[in-house]
């Protein structure tokens, strides 16, 4: 497991990128997280994690087209790499494994 260690925030960012599929750029990711999780995220916090995940090879990115909005700056879209997908799945399986290992008693009370 230590091979694919993901921090909690990293995991959430990757999941959100996966949700947005083709539309995952900075502000969209922040908005999505805010909507789904009610979690305020600063651009700084998000961007550091995105760059780190990209460096680790979990995400890849490409530039979009320039528009008149955003001061004419292009968006950078992130997508999961296949390696990233594998890691994410592995993490999920670990979690599910843990959940399944909990004795029924604990949550039936």
């Amino acid at each position: 497991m230590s091979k694919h260690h993901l921090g909690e925030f990293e995991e959430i960012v990757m999941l959100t990128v996966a949700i947005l599929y083709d539309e995952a750029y900075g502000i969209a990711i922040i908005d999505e997280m805010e909507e789904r999780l009610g979690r305020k995220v600063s651009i700084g916090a998000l961007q550091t994690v995105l760059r780190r995940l990209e460096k680790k090879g979990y995400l890849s990115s490409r530039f979009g087209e320039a528009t008149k909005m955003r001061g004419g700056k292009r968006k950078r879209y992130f997508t999961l790499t296949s390696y990233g997908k594998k890691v994410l799945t592995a993490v999920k399986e670990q979690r599910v494994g843990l959940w399944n290992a909990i004795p029924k008693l604990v949550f039936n009370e």
Partner: protein
Amino acid sequence: MANKNQLKPPNCFLRFFRWYCHPDYQEDIEGDLLERFENRVQESGVSKAKWLFIKDVLLLFRPGILAKFSITYINKGMLRNFMTVSFRNLLRNKTYATINVTGLSLALGIAIALFSIVRFEKSFDTYHKNADRLFQIVQYSEGSSGSNSHTPYGAIYALREEIPEVEFAGAILKDDPQVIEVENQKLKQPHTYFIEPDILKMLDVDWIYGSPETSLSGPYQAVLDVETAERLFGDLKKESALGKVISYDNKYDMKVSGIVQKSPTNSEFQFKMLLSMATRRQDPKWYETSANWEGGHSWHHGYVQLKEGVRKEVVEEKLNKIYAVQDQYHHRKSFGFVDLKYAHFNQYNDSYNYDTPAWLLGTLTYVGLFLILIACINFINLATIQATHRYKEIAIRKVMGSSRNFLIGQFMIETGLIVAVSMPLAVLLAQIIINASDRLLTTQIAHVSIWDVNFFLFLLGSGIAITLLAGFYPAFIFSRFRPIRILRSKLSTLSSRKVTLRHVMVISQFVIAQTLVIIIIVSTKQMRHFYSADLGFNQEAIVTVNMPEKGNKEKRERLRSQLLRHPEILEVTFGLTAPATRTDQWWSGIKHPGAPEDFGCRIQFVDNNYLDFYGLELIAGRGFLPSDTGRHTIVNELAVREMGFTNAEEALGEVIEGWPGRLSIIGVIKDFHSQSLKDDIVAHAYLNNSWNFKTASIKLSPHNMQKGMEHIEAYWSQLFPKNYFEFQFLSEDLKRFYESERKFSNFLGLFAIAGILIGIMGLYGLINFVCISKTKEIGIRKVLGSTLTGIVVTLSGGFFKLVLIAFIFASALGWYLMDSFLQNYAYRITVGWEIFALAALISVGVASIPISSQAVKAAVRNPVDALRNE
């Protein structure tokens, strides 16, 4: 929509972002920032969007996003080259290096000393475990803004017994004995306290033997600190002091029942000898009882520790409610609590140790900062000047491919080097100042070590801060030069016509230095005024000694007749105190139909010849006669005016009523200064009751004072064999009124000298540079027939102009500061033009030393040397 385009995010932050952001990330993150900004403008308005934009930019400043700065690419070889070049530069320009190092270490040294003093003073009584729940009880009197720290025992008792929020409350009385007797030796014992055990449960005291309950709750118990135990009983083992007997003022035999460690220096409570308060309660006449809510000994303090989570206001209110019931005299005063940590700064606290006014700490901090600022200004000035000599080096470095960051780095390293050399010197100087500080200022810091982790962190921090402050500007300027222009042609050297930053800096430097000089002159003059002012009574060749058995008429008269037998003794009189004293002031409220309700007088007890002895002038009525029975009083003019009479004669025969009873006025004397000149004259009433004559005043013949003193000591010791002989010259004693002012004025003198010195060093550097860069001009002028004076004037005129401009600012600032400062004193000098004239003379005189010496040196040079050299 057009309008919306104008709503742009704060430009400087956007630029800041672009500067630090990694170029690979810059475009899309900037886009994100802008998009978010646009959304927010729509949602919550422009100003909020701007703030959030700034917040986002600042939050983005983190390692994952930052560009790799070229500084990080500096390799070891490059660093070594920087260091080498920096060293060579320092060595080549020895004058500049010396000026910089001297100036910086002088300023830093003083600043470090000042900051250490401030830190030490602020640490007073903060070390107690429960420091945030400990309070000193103070009384506020209605109608006056002041408070005082005397606490009647009734208040302390009520706090302890009737208010559940109070954990401990206790009384403590500082009462140094005239004499203690230990194993047949007579000794003085300062810092002696009568104390209730509760006080020692509140304060952190290290017990070696005993405990608050066992060692101080019964009568006739004493606790010593280790040093006192050793002093009194020799360096036997400490425990052997236990059980020994100490006689206090020949009144109480106290048995040593405990030993504590020496109190920390940063405490108001220097416990040398502690005696149980229960001892005083054995005395049926002891007035500090649970029924007392009014007067008493001014050193009878109360301290209280509240239970956790209790607000002091709640307890204050409860106490004042209890007092309201007890207030039979309708004094309508109220009680309050001052945090023990702040008691050291409370000027109304009758301090057990010494108090430090809060404004003093502020002043010291500012002076320290200003000195550092002056030194940094010097540094910047000299560095920019030197740069003109180094254009070529910089240009070549640039051509060889050095980036701007490299150059900035190099100049920073040079600055850092100078700071690093100055720092140890500064610390050395600071230590010297601190060692001498108790002579310069009322502080005890000389007795503690300033060295600890925080001190080193402070040094490191200030070193870095100064390097940045002093190095940033030159580094920035130099690195901006365009190599082509420098290499192709000679840059015009610094023109002296334009008002440059350098001029502003020289001016501000001299403003600070000259203001300090003005302050010094004013405070010295005020001190001299204090010392030499006519107080209204004789003080020449007068010695005072205390009278241990104050009511003993027989001994008193014997001393008088014995002394007067000798021609060296001119006159002897007795009284409560000399006409002006700091301590032992007796006061009473006075009732008179014409006087305001809160009218009070200082009561002085005097012998019949006291008025003549001190030359106090009667303006109406008569002096005391032996037949006066203590029902008669003499008052001063002010008291007469307070009672509503315009003419002193009218007051004669009037009856006033006060604490001594009903008194009829038989005489009026001229007002004189019985308080320090910092305060106004107060109303006085004189009584000739001899039961309270505590002081003998003896006038010596000026021809043989030594012999006279010998007589006094011999007879006095014969009369009071169990007491400790001490005498004071009145004129010396009066000077002690102004001890803290004197010290502070000395201390300021030190700053002024340092400020001027640093300023002069800066001037020296500047003029030196101008002379060198104008070598050729001077040569040509000489060849064309200019005179020596003419050249000196051309060279130095500009500088004197700067000093004079600075002087105008300094005069305004100095006048303003001094005028408000002198308001503290009731009797003050006027700040006249002669003070400013003197200050101007001093600063111009001092400034002319470096200026003219350099100018003359340049002017007398042989023009051939100057012109040949190309």
